[in-house]
């Protein structure tokens, strides 16, 4: 902050106004749990895009102090931890994502939106790590390991912070887009966009990059699932186990039935290609959601990958013919 003021003494009021802006954004109420309680956006990714991550960390510290004093948000003794997660890591993650998005050629709104999402998620991930480490290794009588606490804390954060991260993404993306549409010179003066060619990022390239990234992520997820080790129960039974008298076996699912039949026949069963039981429900659900997202994006934007701009017509032949016919039909004279 000192450097900011030293470099641009005339921008000192802007620092205060930006601080007030961060403070105000973090006070916006977002209903959670169907309105039973509420949560607040971070606001730091947006501030980091506009003013830089270093200034944002200082502003976040000031905002958190005011919140702790006036509204009992955050707390006095947790000020350092909150500044680290919200101001430093949240702001920096958002800023780096925005810069990366711009380097990849994504549009301003998409880059800013993703920056908001990543900044928010990074903030709460670091919170989970800090709390998990403290609970597992510092606090007395821990009930879980670090990963156990991380899962519990993640599940506790998810219902409120999950939708909030999406809201943060929308707010950050639309805010930057609105500023660009109304006053692009403000973004230029703050160094957010390039003065020479502010519109260099095209939406087509952004769509292509996003589709390829999602495709790679989806393929990685499928590969991870298919490379899973089979659980011990899927291994062929030993001879002694087959000979030993066994009680009546009941099968709960089709897979168990085929396993049992193979076992009786003495044929080794193959491990499942996608072993849902080997993974927990959350991982399976995440894989399913990733698959859905990849499928949706590919279905919607496949033409950006395979059809060149200005090349063949994207309208199917039959539809094009009927359109031509309709156009050539003489219009009725109006009375």
């Amino acid at each position: 902050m000192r450097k900011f003021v030293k470099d641009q003494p005339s921008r000192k009021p802007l620092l205060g106004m930006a601080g007030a802006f961060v403070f105000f954004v973090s006070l916006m109420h977002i209903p959670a749990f169907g309105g039973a309680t509420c949560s607040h956006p971070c606001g730091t990714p947006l501030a980091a895009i506009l003013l830089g991550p270093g200034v944002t960390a200082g502003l976040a510290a000031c905002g958190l102090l005011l919140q702790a004093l006036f509204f009992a948000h955050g707390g006095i003794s947790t000020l350092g931890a909150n500044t680290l997660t919200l101001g430093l890591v949240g702001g920096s993650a958002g800023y780096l994502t925005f810069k990366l998005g711009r380097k990849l050629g994504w549009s301003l709104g998409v880059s800013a939106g993703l920056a908001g999402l990543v900044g928010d998620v990074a903030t709460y991930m670091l919170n989970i790590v800090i709390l998990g480490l403290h609970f597992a290794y510092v606090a007395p009588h821990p009930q879980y390991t670090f990963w156990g606490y991380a899962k519990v804390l993640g599940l506790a954060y998810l219902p409120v912070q999950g939708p909030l991260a999406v809201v943060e993404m929308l707010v950050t993306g639309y805010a930057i887009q609105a500023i660009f549409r109304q006053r692009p010179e403000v973004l230029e003066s703050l160094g957010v966009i390039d003065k020479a060619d502010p519109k260099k990022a095209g939406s087509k390239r952004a769509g292509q990059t996003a589709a390829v990234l999602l495709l790679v992520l989806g393929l990685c997820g499928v590969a991870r699932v298919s490379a899973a080790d089979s659980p011990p129960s899927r291994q062929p039974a030993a001879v002694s186990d087959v000979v030993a008298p066994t009680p009546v076996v009941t099968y709960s699912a089709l897979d168990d039935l085929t396993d049992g039949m193979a076992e009786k026949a003495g044929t080794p069963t193959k491990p499942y290609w996608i072993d849902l039981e080997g993974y927990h429900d959350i991982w399976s659900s995440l894989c399913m959601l990733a698959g859905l997202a990849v499928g949706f994006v590919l279905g919607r934007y496949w033409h950006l990958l395979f059809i060149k701009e200005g090349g063949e017509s994207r309208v199917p032949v039959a539809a094009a013919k009927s359109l031509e016919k309709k156009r050539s039909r003489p219009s009725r004279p109006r009375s």
Partner: protein
Amino acid sequence: MAGQLSLQEFFRVEKSQYEGPAYGWRRWDGRVKVVLALVAMTANVLFARPWLSGTLIGLAALGMVYSRCHWKHILLFLFAPGWAVLVLVLGMSFGFGVQPVFRMGPLTFYREGIAMGLNAGLRVATDLAWASLLVITTPFADILRVLRWMRVPGVLVDTLAFMYRYAFLLFDEFSAMRNSAKARGGLANFRSTGRTSGMIAGRIFLRSYDRADRIQMAMQARGSESAPGSTPPTVER
């Protein structure tokens, strides 16, 4: 918590400090109050003893009564953080411990966890009670002056002063724009709410940017060179 303590509510608290004669703690020097509050909060966190936290909460409540603060403000500041404290106590009750006390579905509550949770909750409540005592008996301009006296960097103090001065204004502008958008159906669903809120946030940033320019010009017209020391003047009671 936030639903109960709003900026408008705090504005009323701040305004009440300038109305009528000052009693009790309000007459004390700001430096003494800030230092006492810092000592109480530090001791509460460092020693972490339930008896100490209980005593400190009692002292904070007595201080508020002694200063003749409005009973509504006392209750609001003491009990508003209760929801967060309850979550903390419950979370620790089943997260830690060895001796089970009772079981509720998949959760088992442990004796040690309950003790830890109550202890932590008491510490949180104590810190908040002392912060509240300081804030509802001391005008923010005095707190800023004390921070400057304590050699806190001028940039931070000035930024705090600006934030305090303009946060109310920005929030009012935001409320007006949001009400207007709501009347036009801009908050109809999740996506439009995000879009409208983003556009309002962008608009407010632009207004802040313009206002910062005007403030700078006004400061220069009065001979200022953006030097630190722009703490608000003392208000005579």
